[in-house]
């Protein structure tokens, strides 16, 4: 292992382990009952914060796509609870943001009640500069007891290109960097700073509204945490939290212990430039007893393009996938992460060094899917085939008649990969993005000058197998007035993988149709489109599971009847279902 740049945080980013214990004597003053009551109360606080944001945010990216998360931390920056329906991609990611805000604002000693600290820095909060993290301390009887914080996607932060950059060469091109500052000091807003932030966005109204919504939420979080600590007293609260962490750690250790010891190697596929071949990224999962090490040091060097993944997000995405092996995971806290260690190599795309660009880090995320593939052999009954597309997006933007800038982002998912015991069931995002919603066509048409011509399944697009993947679908947008479109599609060259003999899904594809002309697009920025143009996305299907010869012939014929597969391809893929024709 090479030396690793130290990013100071309670989650120890030297080894990317969960925060260690505090050295406080465990369990004194608590008991299994109080701890359970406090555990529930912490979950309820983080959930209330998330509800407050979703109900009040102005940006559809937040309220409709759920691109946000809320959490509370203890004074040692250990995750107490994160909202139950926050994206797994952000599992425990805010610890780094809180730490950075403290480091840049004079440490915990410099905090006062009513302070609100803001960072948008990618290397603090883990993702593109659009994600703003806001933090407030909670005090009880003058003592710092923890933090309430939230991270939300801001639609426009003045990046060089509207909505998203696909070709930025460094962080400075990707928008306004707010490096951990006090936006409010003891309840009083720094108006100069606030106006500067708004002045750097093409959509200042949205920023103002969304920040207001976040402020409301973290205030609720801090006040509720203060009340909870006040009710049980600091000592009893802290010892209860130790018991809660101990419980969660035990649950995770028992999961990892169920995996036979060994070193499992898997490959993720990363698509960079449209003109380049995809890159295979190898990673290793080492299981020893109840501990797991995820070794990402073989990742390629950091890229001159914005698909790099800052360390906090690498850590939280791997955590999200690990939790998905439990299924029905309870609301997360630091305890779950104790048995997990993540190794990265500084200067690699999973440990980029500033100011490497990160704007479209989500494509880098797909390169981490080797985690599931590594374990798919040993956990054959717990891991499905790959999804047809993790998140496939189009951004529409332009100027209104009054000259103001508008933007709409649509998100789509490929078909679910086949499960170990059934066919894929519908389009879904990969686990880090679980909880995001695809747009409603009607709601979109009400605010965007496009008309959706249809969204229908693509027959024969799913991977074949004993169980087949779920097919992809075709989305067609007819443009109603001149505007620009940015398309960012992934998995356009190698389809979703099948498992244990199952076939691959069909790849994602995009094109713009203007009269007789058809242009193919996968990653294209700011394509001018005009009235009558049709933007078409063909989403990929999920991979298959098990050998197709084992598929129930009745299921093959049902698929033909319902139009999921054509008879022609069924005869080719499942000849055993057509005995008369042999």
């Amino acid at each position, binding site marked *: 292992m090479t030396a690793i740049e130290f990013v100071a945080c309670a989650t120890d980013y030297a080894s990317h382990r969960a925060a260690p214990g505090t050295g406080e004597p465990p369990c004194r003053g608590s008991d299994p009952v109080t701890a*359970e009551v406090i555990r529930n109360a912490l979950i309820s606080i983080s959930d209330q914060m998330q509800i407050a944001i979703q109900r009040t945010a102005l940006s559809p990216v937040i309220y409709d796509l759920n691109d946000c998360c809320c959490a509370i931390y203890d004074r040692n920056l250990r995750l107490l609870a994160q909202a139950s329906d926050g994206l797994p991609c952000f599992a425990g990611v805010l610890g780094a943001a809180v730490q950075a805000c403290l480091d840049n604002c004079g440490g915990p000693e410099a905090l006062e009640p009513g302070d609100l600290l803001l960072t948008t820095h990618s290397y603090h909060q883990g993702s593109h500069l659009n994600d703003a993290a806001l933090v407030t301390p909670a005090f009880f009887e003058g003592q710092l007891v923890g933090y309430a914080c939230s991270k939300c996607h801001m639609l426009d932060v003045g990046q060089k290109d509207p909505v998203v950059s696909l070709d930025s060469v460094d962080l400075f091109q990707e928008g306004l960097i707010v490096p951990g500052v006090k936006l409010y000091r003891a309840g009083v807003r720094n108006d100069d700073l606030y106006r500067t932030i708004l002045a750097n966005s093409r959509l200042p109204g949205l920023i103002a509204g969304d920040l207001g919504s976040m402020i409301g939420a973290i205030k609720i979080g801090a006040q509720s945490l203060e009340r909870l600590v006040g009710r049980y007293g600091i000592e009893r609260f802290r010892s209860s939290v130790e018991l809660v962490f101990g419980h969660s750690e035990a649950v995770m250790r028992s999961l990892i212990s169920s995996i036979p010891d060994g070193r499992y190697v898997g490959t993720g596929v990363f698509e960079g430039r449209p003109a380049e071949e995809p890159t295979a990224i190898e990673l290793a999962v080492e299981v020893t007893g109840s501990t797991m090490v995820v070794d990402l040091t073989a990742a390629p060097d950091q890229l001159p393009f914005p698909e790099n993944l800052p360390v906090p997000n690498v850590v939280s995405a791997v955590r999200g996938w690990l939790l998905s092996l439990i299924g029905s995971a309870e609301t997360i806290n630091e305890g779950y992460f104790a048995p997990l260690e993540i190794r990265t190599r500084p200067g690699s795309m999973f440990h980029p060094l500033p100011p490497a660009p990160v704007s479209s880090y989500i494509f880098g995320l797909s390169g981490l899917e080797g985690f599931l593939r590594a374990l798919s052999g040993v956990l054959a009954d717990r891991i499905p085939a790959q999804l047809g597309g993790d998140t496939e997006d189009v951004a529409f933007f332009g100027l209104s008649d009054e000259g103001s800038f508008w933007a709409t982002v649509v998100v789509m998912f490929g078909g679910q990969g086949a499960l170990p015991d059934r066919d894929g069931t519908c389009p879904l995002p990969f686990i880090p993005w679980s909880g995001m919603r695809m747009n409603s066509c009607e709601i979109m048409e009400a605010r965007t000058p496009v008309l959706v011509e249809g969204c229908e399944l693509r027959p024969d697009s799913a991977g074949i197998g004993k169980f087949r993947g779920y097919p992809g679908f075709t989305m067609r947008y007819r443009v109603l007035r001149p505007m620009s479109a940015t398309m960012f599609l992934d998995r356009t060259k190698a389809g979703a993988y099948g498992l244990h003999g199952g076939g691959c899904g069909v790849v994602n594809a995009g094109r713009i149709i203007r009269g007789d002309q058809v242009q193919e697009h996968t990653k294209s920025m700011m394509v001018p489109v005009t009235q009558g143009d049709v933007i078409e996305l063909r989403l990929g299907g999920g991979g298959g599971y098990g050998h197709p010869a084992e598929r129930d012939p009745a299921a093959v014929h049902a698929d033909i009847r319902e139009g999921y597969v054509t008879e022609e391809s069924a005869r080719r893929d499942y000849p055993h279902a057509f005995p008369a024709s042999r």
Partner: protein
Amino acid sequence: MSIRIGVDVGGTFTDVIVFDDVTGELKVAKSRSTPARPEAAVLDVVDQVIDPAGLASADFFLHATTAGLNALLQRSGGVVGLLTTDGFRDVLELRRGTRDDLYGLLWGAPEPLVRRRRRIGVPERVMVDGTVDRALDEDSVRRALEILRAESVDSIAVVYINSHANAAHELCTEAILRDAGFSGGISLSHLVTGIYGEYERTSTTVVDAFVRPVLSDYLQRLAEGLRARRFSGGCLVTRSGAGAMTFAEAEARPFETLMSGPVAGVAGAQQLCRELGYSRAITADVGGTSFDTSLVVGGEPRVKYEGKVVGLPLQTPWVDVRSIGAGGGSIARAEAGLLRVGPRSAGAMPGPACYGRGGSEPTVTDAAAVLGMLAFGELAGGLQLDFAASRQALAGLGERLGLDTDQAARGVLTIAGAAMAGAIRSITIEAGEDPREAVLVAYGGAGPLFGTLLARELDIGTIVVPVAAGNFSAWGLLCADMIQSAARTAILPLDDAGLDAANQLLGGLFRTIAERGDQGADRAELSPAPSLDLRYVGQEHTLTVHPSADGERIILSAPEVGTLFAAEHERTFGHRHDGAPVEIVSVRATARASLALKSAPAPPVIDGEYETRTIDAYSFTLGRRLSFSVIDRAAVGLRPWWDGPLIVLEETTTTYVDHGFRVSQGASGVLLIKPTDGTERLP
């Protein structure tokens, strides 16, 4: 005579309650449910409790049914065909891409209610502003009908894009289907919900079409059975969104009955609030498997406009009842050093260990038994709870956690109580309410056990335990108002022109309601109430406000409505955006006919000498065991008040009054429990 009959069909039992609101006489009975033909149990239980003359003279038959919900749960509804705008037939199956289990790698969506071959696209397209982009291809509708006939569909759902803006194509399609001789049910999406969001509207319309044949048959058979018994009064079913509607309307809008079960108790709480003059109430309904809570503010329950049943979204008014898996039968267990309670339940079989039906796992009821909260464990009919079995179950649990039996039992009650308090907090905080300003209405078999625990936890000043608290949901049926509603999405600026347009739409919606036919209007006067879903331009979620109206018309000016909205936004979400433009998203028309009871049930009374008993039980206030008085509910009125610690026994429930509280007989026969710390607060 003015008799009402309420029948609540649950999964295990069918409960009936008969009330004469002239004499105050109240009768209850119970029968085992007959899921295959639920009307058999309903008619049977009615025969048990009321004589033929009484039935013939009764005014109302009020019903809560799970017939529709069961059809969904068991997938036993009709065969449905779906007509959509060409290109949108897969909307139902594509969903929105969410998992019910966020981290569930192996999660899969439930099968769509309509198989793909029965979903047919029809060339037609309406734009978001209501203009027609592509005319309806009428021949395609006829061809689609031929396919659906070959598939033997029972009903057809019609969902066209943007039909909220222009419903002409849906209406025209219905006419074509009828002209072509289709006689099954037809569900048109703009009539079912009228709200935008094509996946949610398609889902709702399909659910409507799916449960329609089942519910329609059931209600017709039930009505026939009642008529055969010479009942001639009004037949009403409770709605998910509060209030009741006639059988005729329920057949036309079956999806509105789906979640009528938990709503009945809330209607009872509403009635209590009116009688006792409380402006804010929190309901605490603790049954065998779940704890249900809701909020009644200003005499009205909190209503939301979307929800989910077995993973299927429904756009319909919905009384906001939150449910968590913490009831009397919830099982406690040790897990990695923590004590956990629920959501698994011992149910009715085998039930808690103390029921002696073979259950051995410790439940909430067992914990209460160990702590003495159930007093002597005497049940009706001379049955006796097996407290030794409870102690044994709790002792085993305690051993695994290093706790003694009493500590384990206290822990179970504390954790269940804390979870309930958490649910109450979330429902009140989301509504911008403060639980301390509300009364707690405790009912269900185990609700009155938890009253003082919850009051302490939430700092609530008054607990109300209604008459027949264990059967309060059936009682609530009798208290429902008749309510009908219709809604339509229409995105309009909140200015005077926009408000005019909204008023026009409201007029149309009220006409729609009037045209639904059987109003029961000969029995009661319908009073209209318009409301608006508003938001700041750019927001997605809306808030419903109820501006002052003169009949069907809103009489406030646009700025006045804006002020109302800003105040509601600040109360609910903690901030407002002064100066930001506001828009109307949907208009909602509600017509209500009051069926208010003329009197309350008379509380049971005891004449002459009464001797209290005592039992050793645990006090959560003092943290130790002490001697509790034990009295019958009928004895409460013998004194102005009784100081806790006290346990009050009655047939359907047990009320635990901790040290530091006192109980008295209130109006309408309720028990009022208040803290004795001298800081008595009036809500």
